[in-house]
């Protein structure tokens, strides 16, 4: 059984079907990709998988346990972390504070009024380690809002990673990045994949085809194709199209 399995997810908003019948599974220690044209239901799918929305039908299993309909905080505590496409860092906090707040040990101290985080060298050190891993060493004290865009993207992923998840969901991590920054990001993801299973939603196909072990194509709220990148490339239309030329 795969680490993460979703079966027959169905979701509608009012009279609009957004997810028709999604069945997906993500293996441990792999990078799984989800791609699809705009408005195909990728982001809704992501939100259902990570607990922001409850599916109308279907089940989601993680690590053999049913997590369908659990609120985000409970899903997070099971070991799933996510990043956001629209970046919403804690802008009034420093880079380090952003990370520290995401550490599970700090989360468990959330109600401890007498605790002082700035004196909690354990948390500070672990936060600094995560920052260093994201290539943000030395930027601990900078306000999140003052970081350049590429570093904010890295911090965004760092926050998700700081929660020490078993599975990391990344929502369009390359959006807004130029070619160079995308390359750096690909390197970063290549690095962190050693310790965590990753699911990426992306519209940048080349990025996904290079990185992912397995890709699901979503359109009309359904999985219209899936397989390893090489399998997908075998499709003659894919080869005839722009993607075939560039991928």
């Amino acid at each position, binding site marked *: 059984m795969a680490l993460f399995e979703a079966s027959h997810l169905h979701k509608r908003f009012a009279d609009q079907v957004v997810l028709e019948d999604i069945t997906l599974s993500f293996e441990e220690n792999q990078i799984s990709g989800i791609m699809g044209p705009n408005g195909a239901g990728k982001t809704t799918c992501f939100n259902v998988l990570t607990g922001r929305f409850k599916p109308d039908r279907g089940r989601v299993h993680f690590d053999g346990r049913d997590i369908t309909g659990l609120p985000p*905080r409970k899903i*997070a505590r099971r070991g799933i972390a996510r990043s*956001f496409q629209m970046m*919403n860092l804690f802008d009034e*906090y420093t880079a380090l504070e952003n990370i520290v*707040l995401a550490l599970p040990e700090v*989360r468990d101290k959330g109600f*401890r009024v007498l605790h002082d985080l*700035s004196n909690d060298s354990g948390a500070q050190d672990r936060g600094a380690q995560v920052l260093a891993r994201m290539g943000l060493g030395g930027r601990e004290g900078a306000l999140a809002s003052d970081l350049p865009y590429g570093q904010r993207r890295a911090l965004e992923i760092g926050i998700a990673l700081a929660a020490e998840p078993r599975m990391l969901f990344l929502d369009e991590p390359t959006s807004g990045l130029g070619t160079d920054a995308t390359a750096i990001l690909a390197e970063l993801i290549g690095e962190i994949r050693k310790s965590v299973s990753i699911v990426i939603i992306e519209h940048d196909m080349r990025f996904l085809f290079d990185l992912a072990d397995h890709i699901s194509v979503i359109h009309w709220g359904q999985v219209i194709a899936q397989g390893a990148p090489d399998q997908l490339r075998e499709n003659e239309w894919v080869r005839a199209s722009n993607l075939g030329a560039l991928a």
Partner: protein
Amino acid sequence: MNQNSYLSSFRAWFTAPMLLSFLVFGTMPLWIDAVGLYQYLGLEVMIWVIFALAVNLLLGYTGLPSFGHGAFLGIGAYAFGLTQFNVAANLWLSLFGAVAVTAILGGLVALLISHRRGIYFALMTIACAQIFYFIASKWTDVTGGEDGLLNIARLPVDLGLTEISIRSNFSLYYLCFAAYVIIVVGLWRLVHSPFGKVISAIKQNDSRVAFLGYNVWLYKWLIFTLSCAITGLAGALFAMAQEGAYINIMSLQWSGIAILIVLIGGGFISFWGPVLGVIFYFLARDILGAYTETWLLWFGLIFVGMVMFKPEGLAGMWRDGRTLLGRKPAPQPEPSVTEPSAAGGD
């Protein structure tokens, strides 16, 4: 090593601006007459500072605009009087009654509104406040209706061995000051604890906080209830100061003034914003009020101007002034939570 940790733990509890505020407020009754003001003003300032700090806990720290907090001030005042009349004329018990009743009612309101934000939150607080207002004004048997609850006593401070009378404004002031010290130290600790970091993070981005595994609803509920409890304490002190509990403090106007004070002072960026705001408000009332009847109108216009041009309020101006003068070495303006630089250095 040991001494170092002692020092840092002292720093975790007390800061220079805090000690400065203790010094100023602690000595205020001694010089307030000399600068041409009067003792009762000090009392009002002290009570309103506590009230404004409670409002700012919601508005400034958690980003929840409670437009009806005056109702809880009134509930505290009534509860203080009612406990005193019907249970026992003991200060501690009556204070406890006031805080407990406001916390319970606040907690109930919070049950209804903790999952809301922005406009709906603001309107729900207005609606709840108006409902409390109507109940207080119509339930004459209990609240005295439009006449209010008269003859609330300034009960003596029972310290076990001895009792201190607080009949005079001077001595009541010191009771309020003691409450202020406790509240300020407690709130300072609270907003700098992990709990405070979480509520401020909720203000910045609540869905991300949920995805980090925090129970956002519970944090919001707790902070609203706590804010109401502190407001209840302010209400009880107010009942003693006024020697009565009156319906008018529950009106929307007073809730509005609390918001005005907090924002003008700079509650969005500084812990001390509400304190600055209260001082500014009362000075404006007494100084402007001496010249013009319409001072509250002008005060409201200042508020509108602040929202438009300087939502960071007085604290923000102070910060900008310091940055301009180059006295502050830090290259960037510091955020409120990590660095309450606004009210005077570190």
